[in-house]
């Protein structure tokens, strides 16, 4: 791995920027796709996961369960194609939506199903007494969730939410399939143009690993900040 080989990053890509600049732009795309999708995933996932635990609304529970099963049992790449190709064809007004947003929706909803599952498990891991305590002090169901259940459940699910957020970042690599100019797309194109595959892949892999590590550290920081002394939080493992 000679030093010369690494100079590929200083070469012009034919469009007035170096491969290094291109890679940094691509990193930006990866981070913005993952970041936007994360916001959707957490909001929708928290909502759907909470709905699944409601005590007296069987239809809402069923609806939320269907949501989770649908988005969890189809590969992310196939879901991406559905958002990007099938929906705009079935509903022509959707053709106005930029591709970037469609990818964000695909990744966000896919991840929301996984987060919803964690939220449900987190809520159900709480002792039943917590809910009864809320009822005993005269809270409505909404108040019980807002002031008693969700604050505790949120802390319980932080470890699995960490690995799911890292998964989301890694899963954003599928955006290459619909030509979003993110890191994997850059890796494939630059490898082909320069034949310096090893250097390019190494750099891209390092950026992914660094980003995933940063996500991990941010969550560890949050976990430390919000922890309540005396409550031990369960760990979790995730898929990918």
């Amino acid at each position: 791995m000679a030093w010369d080989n690494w100079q590929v990053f200083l070469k012009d890509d034919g469009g007035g920027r170096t491969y290094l600049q291109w890679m940094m732009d691509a990193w930006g795309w990866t981070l913005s796709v993952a970041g936007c999708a994360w916001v959707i995933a957490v909001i929708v996932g928290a909502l759907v996961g909470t709905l699944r635990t409601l005590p007296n609304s069987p239809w809402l529970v069923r609806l939320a369960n269907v949501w989770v099963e649908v988005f969890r049992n189809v590969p992310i790449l196939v879901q991406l194609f559905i958002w990007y190709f099938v929906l705009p064809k079935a509903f022509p007004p959707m053709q106005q939506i930029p591709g970037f947003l469609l990818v964000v929706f695909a990744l966000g909803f896919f991840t929301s199903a996984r987060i919803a599952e964690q939220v449900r498990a987190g809520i159900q891991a709480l002792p039943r007494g917590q809910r009864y305590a809320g009822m005993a002090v005269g809270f409505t169901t909404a108040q019980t969730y807002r002031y008693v259940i969700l604050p505790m459940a949120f802390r319980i699910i932080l470890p699995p939410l960490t690995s799911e957020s890292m998964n989301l970042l890694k899963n954003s690599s599928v955006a290459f399939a619909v030509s979003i100019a993110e890191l994997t797309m850059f890796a494939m194109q630059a490898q082909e143009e320069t034949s310096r595959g090893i250097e390019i892949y190494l750099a891209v892999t390092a950026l992914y690993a660094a980003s995933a590590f940063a996500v991990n550290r941010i969550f560890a920081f949050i976990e430390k900040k919000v922890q309540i002394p005396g409550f031990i939080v369960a760990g979790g493992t995730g898929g990918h």
Partner: protein
Amino acid sequence: MGNLDLTFLNWDLISKFVIKGFWFSVELTIIATIGGVLFGTVLALMRLSGKKFLVIPATIYVNGLRSVPLVMVILWFFLLVPLLIGRPVGAELSAIITFIVFEAAYFSEIMRAGIQSIPRGQVYAGQAMGMTYGQNMRLVVLPQAFRNMLPVLLTQTIILFQDTSLVYAIGAYDLLKGFVTAGKIYGRPEEAYLLAAVVYFIVCFGLSYLVKKLQAKIAIIR
């Protein structure tokens, strides 16, 4: 949904394009599961051995692979395997090697958790009976650990089946590629994606339903 037309679907399409891809996806899933579990068990035992020269490489391997997207790993192997063995390999063979190597990292985490779920007393009991490390693992710890982690293991296999669609990146002919090819030839790419989604859903939903049933059946009552 007026613009979608599913009437092109017929047996000819399925038998010509889809079945071949489906079998490759299944084959890849099975080989990667078996290979990944075997290799993953070795990695897990290395990490639990307490010997630094075994713990450190295994930890780097597992954490390294778990922090990189599968698509990148697939691309890496497609680039590296021909350089290493000196001749070009097909996308399918490259995919099989990649999936064993990659999934081993995830399976090893499942195995590690499973082995750690066995109370220490079981290990001590084995030692008290004079068993060697190998006997203790084979006869006492692993059978119980395997039973505890079977549901998680099978769930990971379902995820693995979904992940096989990512071989799209190197053009290997899997289930998704089968539908994409058929869609191109019949001029109905969008409908083909939709059908692919339906097939993946049926397979994965059906399998996870079976896992749930199994989980209820084999749970150890304590």
